[in-house]
C-alpha cells in the first residue's frame, strides 16, 4: 500500500521529465557515493551491502493493516536515521534498482523518477527533520522516538510531493484540478506515513538502546538514561 503511487510504471510521466529526473538521480547518487566513501573508505562495500540487505528485508515485512490491505516500509527514514543521508540514499537506490530489474516493479524508464522520490527526497528530508528535531527534543528514548516519528511522516509525504511535482511537470492533464489531486495524494500519504513512522521510531529506538553507536542520527553520543533507572538503584 505504501508504494501505491511511488513505483511509477511506464509513461505515467512524459519522456523529457523522466530524462531530466534520471539526470538528477545520476548526479545525486554520484554525489552520495563520493560522500559515503569519504566516511567509510574501504568499509563502504561490505557495510553498504549489508545495510541494503537489511532494508530489503525490512521492506519484505508485510504487515496487515486492514482486511486485504497490507503495507510495507519505504525505508527512507529508517535508512536516514541509522545510516545517515548519503549511505542511506545509496542503499535505498540499490533496492529500487533491484526491484525494477529483477522483480519488474516500476518501469526502467521511470527509474530516475523513483530514485529521486524514494531515495533522494525521502532520505534527505528525513535527515533534515531528524537533525532539527534532535536539537530541540531531549536526548532520551522518547525524544529520539518522537524525532524519528516526525522525520518518517515528513519523508513519506515529501516523497509523494515529489511525485506530484513530476506529475505537474510531465503528467498528462486529465481534466481534474491539480489541487484536488495533490490534496488526495498528500492526504493518503499522511496516513501511510503514520504507519511507517510507528515502525521506524520503534526500530530506531530499539537500536539506540542496545547499540547507540550504530544510530547515525545520534552522532556517537548515547541516550540520556531515563528516569526509570531509579528502579535499578533500589
Amino acid at each position, binding site marked *: 500500500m505504501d508504494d*501505491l*503511487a511511488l*513505483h511509477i*510504471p*511506464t*509513461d*505515467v510521466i512524459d*519522456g523529457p521529465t523522466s530524462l531530466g529526473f534520471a539526470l538528477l538521480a545520476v548526479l545525486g*547518487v554520484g554525489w552520495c*557515493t563520493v560522500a559515503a566513501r569519504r566516511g567509510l*573508505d*574501504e*568499509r*563502504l*562495500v*561490505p*557495510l*553498504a*551491502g*549489508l*545495510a*541494503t*540487505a*537489511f532494508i*530489503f*528485508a*525490512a521492506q*519484505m*515485512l508485510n504487515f*496487515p493493516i486492514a482486511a486485504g490491505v497490507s503495507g510495507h516500509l519505504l525505508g527512507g527514514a*529508517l535508512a536516514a536515521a541509522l545510516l545517515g543521508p548519503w549511505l542511506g540514499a*545509496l*542503499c535505498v*537506490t*540499490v*533496492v529500487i*534498482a*533491484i526491484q525494477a*530489474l*529483477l*522483480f*519488474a*516493479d516500476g*518501469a*526502467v*524508464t521511470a527509474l530516475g523518477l523513483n530514485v529521486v522520490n524514494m531515495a533522494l527526497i525521502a532520505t534527505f528530508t528525513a535527515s533534515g527533520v531528524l537533525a532539527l528535531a534532535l536539537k530541540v527534543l531531549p536526548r532520551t528514548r522518547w525524544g529520539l522516538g518522537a524525532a524519528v516519528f516526525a522525520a518518517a511522516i515528513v519523508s513519506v509525504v515529501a516523497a509523494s510531493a515529489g511525485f506530484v511535482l513530476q506529475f505537474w511537470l510531465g503528467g498528462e492533464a*486529465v*481534466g*481534474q484540478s491539480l489541487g484536488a489531486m495533490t490534496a488526495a495524494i498528500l492526504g493518503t500519504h499522511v496516513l501511510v506515513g503514520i504507519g511507517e513512522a*510507528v*515502525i*521506524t521510531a*520503534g*526500530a530506531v*529506538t*530499539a*537500536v539506540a538502546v*542496545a*547499540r547507540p553507536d*550504530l544510530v547515525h542520527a545520534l552522532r556517537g553520543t548515547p541516550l540520556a538514561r531515563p528516569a526509570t533507572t531509579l528502579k535499578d538503584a533500589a
Partner: protein
Amino acid sequence: MNAVDGLHRPGDSPLHRLRPQVKIVGLVAFTCAIAATPREAVWAFGVHALLLAALFAVARVPAGWVLTRSLVESPFLVLALAFPFMVEGPAVHLGVLTVSEPGLWAGWNLLAKATLGVWAALLLAATTPVAGVLAGLSRLRFPEILLQITAFAIRYAHLTVAEVTQMRLARLARGDDPRFLWQAGALARSLGTVFIRSFERGERVWQAMAARGYTGRLPLEIGPAPASARQWTAAMAVPAAAAALAAWTAAAL
C-alpha cells in the same frame, strides 16, 4: 521461489543464451518505444503485445507465470479503471455506464503501457540470472562501486530475510498473535535487532576481507564476455520493430 533470487527461470533458449548487456539495452529501447506509441493507435499495442508474446514463447516462459507476476502493477490497474469515472470531459455511453471520454483514453493509456512495460521487464528477469544482470550492467560501464554493493546486498539478503522469518516464527511459537496495530511494537523491535545483526555481520565480513588483503577494490578482474555484432543485431530486432511502429503511428496521426 525465494524472494531474493529475482524471477529467473533457468533454461537454455536463445534468449537465455543472449548476453545480458544486450538484453538490458533491448529492454530500455523497447520500453521507450512503448512509451512513445500514441494511445489512439490501439492496434499498435496489440502488435507490441504479440512481439512480446513471441519472445516469451521462444524463451519457453508459460503465459500463466507472466500473468501471475504481472500482479505487481495491480495498484495502477485500479487507478486505470478509476480514470473513466474521475476525469471530467465529454461523456460517452458504454452500455449502462456513462463515462468520460478523455478519462477512458487516459485509463487505456496507463493500462496498456504499464502492462507492456511490466511484461518486457519480466522477460529480462525470467531469462537472466542475478549475476548475469550485474555482469551486463558492468559491461555497460555502470559504476563498479554500486554494482559491488548490489552484489553484496543480494548475497546477504538471503541471510537477512531468513533471520526476519525465523524471528517471526519464534514469536509465533511463544504464543504471539500478530494482528492489526498491536504487532507494531514487536515488529519494530525485531527490525532493530535485525539491523544490529546485519551491521555487525557487515563489520565481520569487512574484517575478514581486510585480513585477506582487501583495500577497497575486489582484486579479481573477471570481465564479463563481450557480445558479438550478431547478438546485438538479433537482440535489437524486436525493439527496432517496436520503435518503427511507434514512429510510424505517431506520424500517421
